[in-house]
């Protein structure tokens, strides 16, 4: 028997060792750059990413489907690898085989073996109840009663007061922020109903202030809460051009009903990484743009989530926004450089600053060559409500100022946006930027569009009659 066992061992040992080695090799090649060769979360990219890469030596895994305080299942770790964590630099790793991922999971567990001594089962979940308005309302009440808003803010944008206290940190001692529940593309733990119900509200997010609500809320209450949170999620509308329609008078207020009826475009934005200081750890990920125009002026509204407003009076820079246009509408494809223009081709910047709540116009020929315009034609107003900035820029279509371009109806006009989060010490080149997009003042429908089709129809009908007569005559003899 012993000999038999020994043979088995000898036979399987290389296999086991191989899988260990394979896990280590994969880890060193493809995980260590961020998570550190020692699994301590201190890799090359640690100071260049936000949120920071996870360390594995503490044995705390943020994302799991098991009850709070218990280790994640293998499938939980596999999920993080396969799906990645949205809102962080952890991408979905699809390239590896299932066996490779398994080897990787086994290697990860070796960083904190004691943590995995008593494996846990995933929390059992039933079927999600059908969503109803009542259920969402119930969830909303629970959101208030369970004090979710203290961190996540009254509208779920992650702007709650607790979130920006200095001590709001995770178990690794890093500064973190409550999730903005309205941006599903930022939710590291996933954004579908199961993710919200089981992996977030019920299991909690380990090592963070997001506790488990398994004991505090009943099963149906957690479903209601998950439905409410799901209802908060915005759908991103990506594209390359924004249509702006003509209205009678440009809205002056950010909650004018006109804004609800207009087309909008979501611009994904990223850190400015081209010029010093390069910005690798931004907090803002999206800006929503909409606009209208009248006979005489144009109004554009920017909307973005900033969890903590800064007016520049708290030792932090003021929050700010730039709208950028080419100073001349380009004739061909050629445009100024998409960030701040270049020496040959200038851009016009409309700058709004929370500290002044007004706009200034600048001409830029590169980030170092920025001059304020003599004539100022842009006006801005803003509101900040529950974590959401809304800024309206207004300008006459044509200013008469030689330095300004005119907004020509029917032309595609390039624009881009730069935003600054004062809380994240953003100012100057340290900001979040977008690529060039287009906006177009859509011309009112031309009359010929309505007139021409019936004329053509009648003409074809007439032609048919003529043909009928001719054919009739010609072949009658037959």
């Amino acid at each position: 028997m012993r000999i038999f066992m020994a043979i088995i061992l000898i036979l399987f040992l290389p296999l086991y060792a191989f899988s260990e080695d394979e896990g280590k090799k994969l880890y060193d090649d493809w995980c260590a750059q961020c998570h550190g060769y020692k699994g301590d979360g201190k890799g090359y990219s640690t100071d260049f990413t936000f949120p920071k890469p996870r360390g594995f030596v503490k044995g705390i895994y943020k994302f799991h489907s098991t009850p709070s305080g218990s280790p994640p299942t293998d499938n939980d770790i596999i999920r993080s690898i396969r799906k990645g964590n949205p809102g962080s630099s952890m991408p979905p790793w699809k390239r590896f085989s299932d066996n490779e991922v398994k080897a990787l999971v086994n290697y990860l567990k070796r960083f904190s073996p004691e943590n995995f001594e008593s494996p846990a089962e995933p929390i059992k979940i039933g079927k999600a109840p059908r969503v109803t308005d009542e259920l969402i309302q119930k969830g909303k009440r629970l959101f208030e009663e369970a004090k979710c808003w203290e961190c996540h803010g009254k509208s779920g944008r992650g702007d709650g007061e607790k979130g920006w206290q200095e001590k709001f940190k995770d178990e690794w001692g890093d500064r973190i922020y409550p999730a903005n529940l309205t941006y599903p593309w930022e939710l590291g733990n996933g954004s579908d109903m199961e993710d919200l119900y089981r992996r977030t509200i019920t299991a909690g997010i380990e090592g963070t202030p997001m506790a488990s609500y398994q004991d505090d809320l009943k099963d149906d209450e957690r479903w209601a809460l998950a439905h409410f949170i799901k209802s908060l999620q915005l759908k991103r509308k990506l594209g390359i051009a924004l249509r702006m329609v003509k209205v009678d008078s440009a809205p002056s207020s950010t909650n004018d009903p006109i804004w609800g009826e207009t087309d909008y475009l979501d611009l994904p934005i990223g850190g400015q990484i081209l010029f010093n200081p390069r910005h690798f750890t931004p907090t803002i990920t999206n800006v929503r743009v909409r606009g209208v125009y009248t006979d005489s002026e144009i109004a554009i509204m920017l909307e973005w989530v900033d969890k903590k407003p800064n007016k520049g009076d708290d030792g932090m820079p003021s929050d700010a926004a730039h709208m950028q246009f080419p100073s001349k509408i380009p004739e061909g494809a050629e445009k100024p450089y998409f960030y701040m223009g270049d020496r040959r081709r200038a851009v016009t910047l409309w700058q709004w600053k929370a500290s002044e709540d007004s706009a200034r116009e600048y001409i830029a020929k590169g980030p170092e060559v920025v001059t304020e315009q003599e004539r100022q034609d842009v006006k801005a107003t803003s509101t900040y409500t529950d974590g959401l900035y809304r800024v309206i820029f207004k300008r006459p279509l044509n200013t008469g100022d030689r330095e300004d371009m005119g907004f020509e109806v029917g032309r595609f006009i390039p624009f881009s946006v730069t935003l600054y989060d004062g809380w994240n010490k953003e100012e100057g080149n340290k900001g979040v930027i977008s690529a060039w997009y287009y906006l177009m003042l859509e011309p009112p429908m031309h009359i010929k569009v309505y007139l021409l089709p019936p004329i053509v129809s009648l003409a074809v009908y007439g032609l048919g009659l003529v043909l009928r007569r001719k054919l009739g005559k010609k072949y009658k003899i037959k």
Partner: protein
Amino acid sequence: MAIIYPIITLLGLMLSIISVIKRSPLFNFIGIQIALYGGLKGVGLIIPPLPGQVILMYMVMSVFAFLIYFSIDDKTFKRFLEPIRSVFVEDDKRIIRSLVFFFVPILAGFITYWEVKPRFEPPVSARIIHPEPSTEIEFRGKTIRILGLENPLRKDVTNLPQHIEEGKRIYYQNCLHCHGADLDGKGHFAQAFNPPPLPFRGTDTIALLPESFVFWRVAKGWRDIPEGSTPWDSSMPAFEDFLTEKEIWEVILFIYEATGNKPRTW
């Protein structure tokens, strides 16, 4: 969805065959055109789909060719036109005639509307992906000849692993955000920029390029690419501002090593 085209071809052929039996050249003609259209679209299932322009050209040619074919013989042409004529004048075709007189003008009106309706398409600018590099560049005050330039670190065989490891550090502190942790061009900032960052994985980017070209792209970024490559849109930093010559060579070693690609050497 493309599977519908072979079916269209079959239907067209069927119509054509039935028409031959029934001796109706007009429907034969229509059947042939339908079959041909289905066929031209259907080749997309086997080879890369033909451009719309090419298909249009073939169709116009086929319409003319078959019109000529059917009109050479006077009798055939008469039979060809007979269904049209009868719809216009014969008393027993009254119902079809009413339908034709109703729907054809409506269709014409609709096509007109479709054509005159203003369509707003933002300008597209064609872009040269692999522009011609400069033969010489100024790198921090030093003139570097790009043509025939080789990665000097490859000769330092003993320290090659260290150079690659250093390249890895540089990559994950400078390139990760756009080109991605897996070098697949899907970094967490990638979506913000247009054109999107290039992947290094795969055989159609750096695998096609000599290292000298890559050095030029990394060192000069958006700043030095010709107009045809829309430098105004490029979010590739000019790394001469941030990295030394050696660091750039190291990061180039790393991106080839990590993706299993080999630089082009011919």
